């Protein structure tokens, strides 16, 4: 743990300081070696930002995403989310944090196939301790806002990719989290649907002030974000605006 805890700032959502992440591997000789994935990451994300994280596969961007999402913990360094030091929290506290503060949108949608769209959207409310009736009601309102109310009783396998992703976004929004983490959200979608989804993200960011952090390797998708972070070999090599001529190593 570092000692230089910053003064709590009301506008800062995410603050990462000297973060390292490494995995232990066993080499051919049977020796345990540290495989560094992220090295000395320092990052501040303010509330209301729209950030795209780009990088080759294996660059460590997914690991960073997992740590941001409190799904994984750093090997060393600090991560404050809403001024809470994530490294200090128990598993159950992390679960609560994910439930209240973070909405996840995945490349593969990750809906629960056994449930209707409505129930999928309602699940985070149930885990937050809401009763079933009120959860369903709120989930229905959320689906209406996303224009999916007529698919409420459909199962995910009865929906198109774009519809599934909109259900997933509805689920991510249901607890009104300040942060949405989207890991290649358009990776499984065609161009037109991708644009629709990205427009939805842009809208959420602009109209509701929700902070969006997006991982992608497509430039035109990253272009929806206002801030670009490039990761290479576990380090941030670029962090700035979208003027692509400034980007040292364009990814596509």
């Amino acid at each position: 743990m570092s000692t230089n805890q910053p003064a709590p700032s009301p506008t800062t959502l995410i603050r990462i300081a000297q973060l390292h992440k490494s995995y232990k591997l066993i080499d051919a000789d049977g020796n345990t070696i540290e495989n560094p994935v992220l090295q000395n990451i320092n990052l501040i994300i303010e509330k209301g930002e729209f950030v795209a994280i780009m990088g080759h596969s294996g660059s460590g961007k997914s690991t960073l995403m997992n740590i941001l999402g409190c799904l994984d913990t750093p090997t060393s360094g600090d991560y404050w989310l809403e001024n809470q030091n994530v490294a200090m929290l128990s598993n159950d506290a992390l679960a609560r944090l994910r439930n209240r503060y973070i909405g996840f949108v995945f490349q593969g949608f990750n809906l629960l196939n056994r449930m209707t769209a409505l129930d999928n959207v309602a699940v985070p409310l149930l885990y937050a301790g809401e009763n079933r009736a009120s959860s369903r009601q709120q989930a229905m309102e959320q689906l209406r806002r996303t224009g999916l109310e007529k698919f409420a009783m459909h199962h995910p396998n009865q929906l198109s990719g774009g519809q599934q992703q909109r259900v997933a976004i509805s689920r991510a929004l249901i607890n009104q989290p300040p942060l949405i983490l989207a890991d290649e959200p358009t990776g499984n979608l065609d161009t037109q649907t991708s644009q629709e989804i990205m427009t939805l993200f842009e809208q959420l960011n602009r109209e509701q002030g929700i902070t969006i952090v997006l991982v992608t390797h497509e430039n035109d998708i990253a272009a929806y974000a206002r801030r670009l972070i490039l990761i290479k070999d576990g380090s941030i090599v670029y962090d700035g605006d979208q003027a692509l001529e400034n980007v040292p190593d364009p990814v596509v």
Partner: protein
Amino acid sequence: MRALRMNRLRTGLTMLGMIIGVAAVVLMLSIGQGAQTKINQSIETMGSNLFIVLPGATSSGGLSFGSGSVKTLTVNDAMAIAELPAVNATGPVISGTAQLNFNAKNWSTSITGTTPDYFMVGNWTIEDGSIFSETDVRSAARVVVLGSITAENLFGTINPVGKTVRITNRPFLVVGVLAAKGQSLSGRDQDDNVFIPITTSERQITGNQFPGSIRYMLVQGKSAETMEEAEIEITQLLRQRHRISDGMENDFTVRNLTAIADVATDTAKILSIVLGAIASISLLVGGIGIMNIMLVSVTERTREIGIRMAIGANRNAILIQFLLEAIMICFMGGMIGVILGIGSAWIISQLIDMLVVITLSMVFLAFLFSSAVGIFFGFYPARKAASLKPVDALRYE
């Protein structure tokens, strides 16, 4: 719960293990309980605080005869024993078989010559008419009390009381019919029997090689607490009356029937326990089946667990979800198993005329046990699911 419905076949097969286990437990317990009840019923019909005193078990020149081989007990012995302080009453018996006739019907049955006290000692109740009296015994009257089976076979729907039957061609007045008792502990039908005064029997029906001797006698002690005392008194009195000097063996045998009944009850209890234990093994196997399938289910649904964790499920929520599924399988399996167990117990009781007894506590026990199996064998897979790391679970393909 949804997961259970989606995998109907698998859930059904897993449940089958539970169903068979619970059904086996219920069936085995009901058979054991039935045996116990049957024995208890037999014991109740036998009369309480009972001794049977048999003549014989003498040895002559190194040759040992079995009980009853020598006619050493007499009616007078029985009368003397009846006067002992720890003894309530005695019922001396001489017995044989005889042919009975009523109109055109005939029936061959065993015939018991005894005294009125015998009916009290042997816990008989009279259905119709009355038993014969002491006067009948003294006068060797030709009166007869019929066992229910004999009465039915000889008279059918006619009321036998007041009618005359012929026993080995001598007319006897039927004075009473006994209530049915069922089988004795030894499996003999106690209701196929007729009773006449002991004097009548000796002189006119069964005859007697040694006049005054009897086949055996039933002795009823005053109370359950004084049974040992009674046994000592009977032994001492008989040794004295038979002039058996010290060091010589008894020429009679005193058996405590209550003690024999206790052994029978214990045996039935052990039978119950053994049957129950064997059935429990199948329940255990069913439980292992559940554990196995839950482990497969956890592995298969790793990604689902990851998603649930990402959207805010804590460890307890995951644990409870999987534990509930296991308990649900067990509970439903238990319910079907109980029904199946009761059903098959009923079928068995119909098919082979065996007494089966199903008690509420038995059903409750089977339920409790199956739920416990669910919790026990469901816990490990559920904990395995709950302890997955969210990032690993999400990455699982």
